[in-house]
C-alpha cells in the first residue's frame, strides 16, 4: 500500500500547491505549475521519498495523480 498522505505531500511540496486541491484527477490539465520541468522534479522526489527506481516510460506515463499511484505501486511490488 502506498501512503497516500505522503504522496500528496511530495506533490504539494514539489509543485508548490496546497495539499487540499490534490486528488486522483489532479494532472497537468488542472495544475498550472505541473509543467514538463516540475514533472521531472516530481519524479525524482517520488523516487527519493519512496526509495524506488522508475523507468523513463514510467515517468512519461505519470499523467495524473491516479496514474502516479498505479505506477508507483507497480514499481514497489516488483
Amino acid at each position, binding site marked *: 500500500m502506498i501512503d497516500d498522505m505522503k504522496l500528496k505531500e511530495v506533490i504539494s511540496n514539489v509543485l508548490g500547491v496546497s495539499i487540499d486541491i490534490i486528488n486522483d484527477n489532479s*494532472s497537468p*490539465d488542472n495544475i498550472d505549475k505541473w509543467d514538463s520541468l516540475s514533472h521531472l522534479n516530481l519524479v525524482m522526489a517520488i523516487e527519493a521519498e519512496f526509495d524506488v527506481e522508475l523507468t523513463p516510460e514510467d515517468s512519461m*506515463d505519470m*499523467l*495524473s495523480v*491516479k*496514474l502516479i499511484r*498505479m*505506477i508507483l505501486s*507497480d514499481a514497489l511490488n516488483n
Partner: protein
Amino acid sequence: MDEFNLGDSYSDKFIVTEDVVNKFADFSSDFNPIHIDQNFAKSRGYSRQVSHGVIQLSYLSKMIGMDFPGPGSIWMNQTVNWLLPVFVEDTIKIVLTIKGRSSSAKILTLSVEIFNEDNKKVMQGEAQVKITKNLSSQLNNEINELKDLNLLQDSKEYLPNKSNSTQRVALITGASRGIGEAIARKLSSNGFRVVINYRNDANSAKKIVDSIISSGGDAIALQADITISSDILIMSKKIFSKWGRCDVVIHSASPPIKLIKTEQVKYEDISLYLNTHLKGAVLLVENFSKSMIQNKFGRFIFLGSAALYGAPPQGMAAYVTAKEALWGYTKAIATDMAHYGITANMVSPSLTITDLTSEIPARVKEVEAMKSPVRRLVTAEDTAYHVAHLCADYSGYLNGINLPITSSPV
C-alpha cells in the same frame, strides 16, 4: 439503354395552330408571308398558310427530350427531307422508330416520319440520339428520398434507414457483447433489422434480442463460428429465408487481445487472429455480396484497430498483423465492388474497455485515457455511432476508408 430495342416505336400528335405559327415567326423573325398571310399563300397556289417546317422539328425536339428516349437525351444528328407542306391548323403525327442501337456508344438511331391528317408522309428523316448516364444517380435518389420525408430539414430526426421503403437488414458478427453489441443496438434504433451473431454466448445474445424487440425493434440471434465456412453458409440461408435480404455486414468478432513479446510470437498466434479477422471477412463477402449486387446496395464494415496507425503498441504483433491484412482486403473490396453500390470501410477505435481488452492492464488503459486529447477512453457507443453513419444509404461515397475513432490526428 437496355429498355430500348430495335423496332420499338413511339408516336405523338400535334396541331400546328395559327397561334403557334405566329409565335414562331415572332421568335425567329421569319415573317415570310407564305407562313403568315393567307392571301399571299393563295397567290402562290396554296390553300392556306404553309407552316414553318422547323416547327415540326420543335415538336420532334420535345418528343426526343421529354418522351422517347426522354429526359437527358442529347440530339446529335438529324437529316430532314420535307416531302409535302404542312398547313396552318393541320394535325400532324410524328412517328419515331428505333432503327439502330449501340450499347457501347449509348446512341440510338431513330427513323423520323411525319404524317398529315390524310396519313400522307410530309417529312422523312433520321435522328441520332445519345442516352446520357446519370453520373450521380445514387446520390440523387437518396436526396429525393430524404426530401420526400422532409428529413433534410430536420437533421435531429435523421433516421437514415427510414429513408428507404425497404427495411434494411444488418448482420453484426460478435454482437453478443462489447462493440458488436453497441453497434447492433444503435442500428436497431436507426431502423435496421439486426442479426446478432454469436459463437458461444447464446444467453447474452438472447438478452440483447429481447431488449431490442421490447423497445420496438426487430432482431434475431444466430449462432455461427465465423471461421467455419459451413456455419456462415447456414447463417446466411437463415437470414435470407427470414428477411429475404442482408444489406449490411459488420464484422466485429475477434478473439481477446493477448500481449505477446514479438520475439516469442508463433505463426499459430497470428493465425488465431487471421482466421477470425481475415478468413471470416472473406467468408462473409463470399456469402453476402451476391445478394447485395442484385440489390445494388451493400455495406461491409470491418472493425480495425487504432494500433494500425503509426507505430503499433508493444506485444501486439499477432493482432496488428491480422488487422493489417484485413485492411488490405477492405481496400480491395472498396475498389472492386463500389460500382455495384457496395462500399467497404474499416473503423478503427483506440483502446476500448470491453471483454476483448480485459487482459490489458488497468494502468495501460489509464495512460491511454490521459494521452487522449479528450482525456477519456473511447466507448463502444462512440464507435457504434460512426459505424451507423457508414451504414446509411446516404454514405455511398464514403468508401475504402479506415476511420480513426481516436480523438486525435493519426
